[in-house]
């Protein structure tokens, strides 16, 4: 058996990053290379360079990205269990997004609705494409109502719908009046925007306009927060819910892991918004703040250190001794288990390298987990994030709005005449800021990456292959579309969209799970067998003939 250290042929020393970048661009046509080079940065924390992001993928270049329907219906609204989601369009779009994201949910009683196992589609046929599909949509909403009597119904448009001009918003409005339940629609046709990201924004807008703030039953609890941008993949939200409960924090709503429409409707009753995935949900945080006066800050519950830091920030925000004491106790309890796992696993992973190309926040957050077991991230990038997720929100004023972003509504928000209630006064906020405790901020991924590492936005299939050839990382993190190509190259691929059937990875217990899964992958025996013995052995016949001479 080969030595575990050599299972994966890591390249040492690492290649020169500038040369690597050049190699990535080499086989592109000049025009493509000129565009792609702007999406690649050799990191230097001292002088942060600008990266191009959120730009249209070049036709014919195979991308990781999906469409805005996927971001809207799949990502943001998908994890909520008691809204019936109807896809308006031909069958494929709905079918492909049926139960494929591994977001979990847990009903609190048998009486509660859970529609996650269902996939409703108007399954448009040729006649609807030609003559319009509004009638069928209306009938489908009625049918869903008759069958299930849900609290709310959401309608999602796919590409052909926008083109044939069905007015899904009118239909929804009519049905809302008729049925007396909340019915709302999303114009999330896949051609809008350049990736899932457009769909997140569209989802945020409609949730804000049609759902948030409708609730009137008060929420009990001393320390009330919302968790934004947490989607309960592999059960992450359950871990976090448990942590909050043990600390004495009341979770009013999560957008949208393990969530209900009722939670959304009462989100304005929280006193703090904690933002996990900045990319997918920062719009809601901003809008809630403007309308209701709830401040937000960025948290990260991926990684044991980050989790502890985030819990402490929440405690600091509420400035309560009892909360602080309980939080510290929970952290101490959890850290004990974490330390034990680290000392077991760190020696088996130390010094190995990782690459992360995924999502809009995970490529950043998961670097912390690798650090905790001594692994270095040598290259990372997002699939659909914007410049602020790379370079921090300080670059927001410099981001150019192009045609692809311009067609997504910017909701104008005003203070609510009755419900606006700033949870912290301007002076209080200023006092926090003076202590380096920042609100409405996110520093982005790049400032935290080591010098000489690479940031690559919207990495293509071709670049992925070249990068792996040059660096031979011990593990490559991406999604299922990349997984098998990466593994054919002899490098394990960790799926960070669906966690490869594993998880949870959030919080302290999640960190331990992740260390164990990475250990299992990078030290798997299978990789050692790729080179067959006859490839390295000199032919016995040949040796014999040499001997004869």
């Amino acid at each position, binding site marked *: 058996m080969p030595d575990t250290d050599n299972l994966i042929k890591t390249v040492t020393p690492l290649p020169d990053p500038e040369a690597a970048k050049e190699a990535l661009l080499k086989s*592109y*046509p000049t025009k*493509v290379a000129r565009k792609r080079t702007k999406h690649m940065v050799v990191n230097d924390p001292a002088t942060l360079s600008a990266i191009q992001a959120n730009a*249209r*993928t*070049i*036709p*014919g*270049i*195979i*991308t990781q990205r*999906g*469409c805005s329907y*996927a971001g809207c219906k799949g990502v943001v609204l998908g994890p909520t269990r008691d809204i019936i989601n109807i896809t308006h369009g*031909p*069958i*494929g*779009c*709905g*079918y*492909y*997004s*049926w139960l494929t994201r591994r977001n979990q949910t847990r009903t609190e009683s048998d009486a509660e609705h859970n529609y996650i*196992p*269902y*996939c*409703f*589609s*108007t*399954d448009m*046929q*040729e006649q609807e*494409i030609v003559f319009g599909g509004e009638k069928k949509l209306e*009938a*489908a909403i009625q*049918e*869903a109502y008759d069958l299930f009597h849900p609290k709310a119904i959401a309608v999602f448009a796919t*590409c*052909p719908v*926008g*083109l*044939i001009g069905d007015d899904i918003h009118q239909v929804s409005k009519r049905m809302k009046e008729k049925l007396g339940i909340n019915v709302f629609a999303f114009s999330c*046709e*896949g*051609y809008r925007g*350049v990736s899932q990201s457009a769909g997140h924004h569209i989802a945020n807008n409609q949730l804000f306009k049609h759902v948030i703030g409708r609730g009137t039953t008060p929420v009990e609890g001393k320390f009330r927060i919302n968790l934004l941008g947490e989607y309960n993949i592999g059960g992450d939200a359950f871990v976090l819910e448990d942590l909050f409960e043990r600390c004495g924090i009341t979770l009013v709503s999560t957008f949208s892991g393990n969530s209900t429409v009722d939670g959304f409707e009462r989100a304005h009753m929280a006193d703090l918004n904690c933002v996990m995935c900045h990319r997918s949900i920062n719009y809601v945080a901003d809008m809630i703040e403007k309308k209701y006066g709830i401040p937000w800050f960025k948290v990260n519950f991926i990684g044991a250190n980050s989790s502890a830091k985030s819990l402490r920030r929440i405690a600091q925000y509420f400035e309560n001794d009892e909360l602080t004491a309980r939080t510290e106790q929970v952290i101490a309890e959890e850290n004990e288990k974490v330390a034990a796992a680290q000392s077991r696993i760190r020696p088996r992973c130390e010094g190995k390298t990782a690459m992360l190309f995924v999502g809009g926040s995970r490529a950043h957050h998961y670097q912390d987990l690798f650090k905790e077991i001594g692994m270095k991230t040598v290259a990372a990038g997002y699939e659909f994030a914007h410049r602020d997720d790379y370079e921090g929100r300080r670059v927001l004023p410099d981001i150019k709005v192009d*045609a*692809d972003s311009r*067609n997504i509504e910017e909701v104008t928000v005003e203070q609510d005449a009755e419900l606006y209630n700033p949870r912290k006064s301007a002076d209080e906020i200023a006092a926090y800021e003076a202590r380096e405790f920042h609100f409405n901020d996110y520093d982005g991924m790049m400032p935290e990456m080591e010098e000489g590492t690479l940031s690559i936005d919207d990495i293509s*299939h071709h670049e992925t*292959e070249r990068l792996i050839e040059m660096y031979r990382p011990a593990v490559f993190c991406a999604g*299922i*579309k990349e*997984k*098998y*190509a990466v*593994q*054919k*190259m002899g490098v394990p691929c960790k799926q960070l969209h669906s966690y490869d059937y594993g998880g949870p990875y959030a919080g302290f217990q999640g960190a331990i799970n992740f260390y164990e899964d990475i250990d299992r992958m990078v030290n798997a025996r299978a990789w050692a067998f*790729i080179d067959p013995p006859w490839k390295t052995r000199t032919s016995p016949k040949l040796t014999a003939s040499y001997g004869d001479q």
Partner: protein
Amino acid sequence: MLPVKEAGTTIAVATQNACKACMPLGACLAYRGVEGAVPFLHGPQGCATYMRRFLIGHFREPMDIACSSFSEETAIFGGSADIHTGLDNVAKAYHPAMIGIATTCLAETIGEDMGLMLHQHAEKNADKASPLVVAASTPSYSGTHADGFHAATCALVNALAETDAAQAGRADVVCFPNMVSPADLRYLKEVLADFGLCHVLLPDYSETLDRPIAGEYERIPKGGVPISAIRGAGAARASVTLGSAFRPGQHPGAALLAKCGVPSLSVGLPVGIRGSDLLFQQLEDLAGKPTPEKHAAERGRLIDTYVDAHKYLYGKRAVVYGEEDLVTGIASFLDEIGVVPVVCASGGRSGGMAEALSATVSMQRGDIQVLEDADFVEIGEAAEAAKADLLIGNSRGFGLSRRLDIPLIRVGMPVHDRIGAQRIQLLGYRGAQALCDRIANAVIARDQERSEPGYMTM
């Protein structure tokens, strides 16, 4: 003929938990079976991403699908610029021998004139050695993934097959295998070779979607039917098409007959003894020799298995769902092993499934329900009403299997929740053997789990 629940007469307006995917997906799969080809979607990138995810999850293999990445502007003004750029970039990055285009709903909705665009593209590139381009029209609002698969297969025939008898290595037979697993494709090639028939299998993704790990990655996988072989198909002595659920204009054997005059033979998807016998008879005639001993022996072993299994299986009631040809083939096989296919359901609606079933399933049992254009809600209701003991179909029936607490035997596509979908065998004596073992064992395992003493002899 069996009574059929007709398309469109369903009570339900919406489709809940569909039992079909969309047309371009099938087309991309077919293109993957051509040597050196890259599938390309004309439409927005979301569709390509969803389809890649679906196929990759099923085969657990890389599957590149390029795309013209429609923007909102393209959606309004047309995608000719995007398709030129897209094709150029794919040609440059992949050096493919062929690019296979399938159209998405959006491209079809705006009425893209593919013929004209490809003509322009060819003119622009007249001076370069650019890859061959073949296109199929695949609007999902008028068909399922199976229809898309056949549409692309026909597009390949129509674009490439030539009558020119001077073709080197003239084939005896062209086999259109239908949408089956890589293992089944390999089996078909083995059978044809054992008969000594020089053959063309169209498409053939037996290697491209079940590849060895070598530590190096080839962007266009080895394998697939060579383009020259598709050209030569026009000079073959005959074609054999497996399956019968083809919509008008989508029968590949008929397309080859129309274009090149190659006689077209058809058998249903050969699952079980009778179906396989039909295929082997056709091959005996074409080869002019009896079935090779190896296969005759496999047939004998299969019957031995039927005998071993019949006590466990006789009278069991199964629900079969998936693509129409798959359902028809499996139902015919179930009939042989004494399992009643009480519900035969498909999301497709080519219209021929009931008739095909009538021909192969013995009618006297009477209570067989045929569902066309069905979704899993209808299938579930029918399954419950029929007191089914077993589900046979793809992974999307898992929820139903859990709810009814009956075993699911995974066949067809997608099989996303088990390893080895690419190696599930159905066809011929060997495939029926594997399937019979699996079904019998699923039934036995149930009985064993429920036996209180925990019998170890079943």
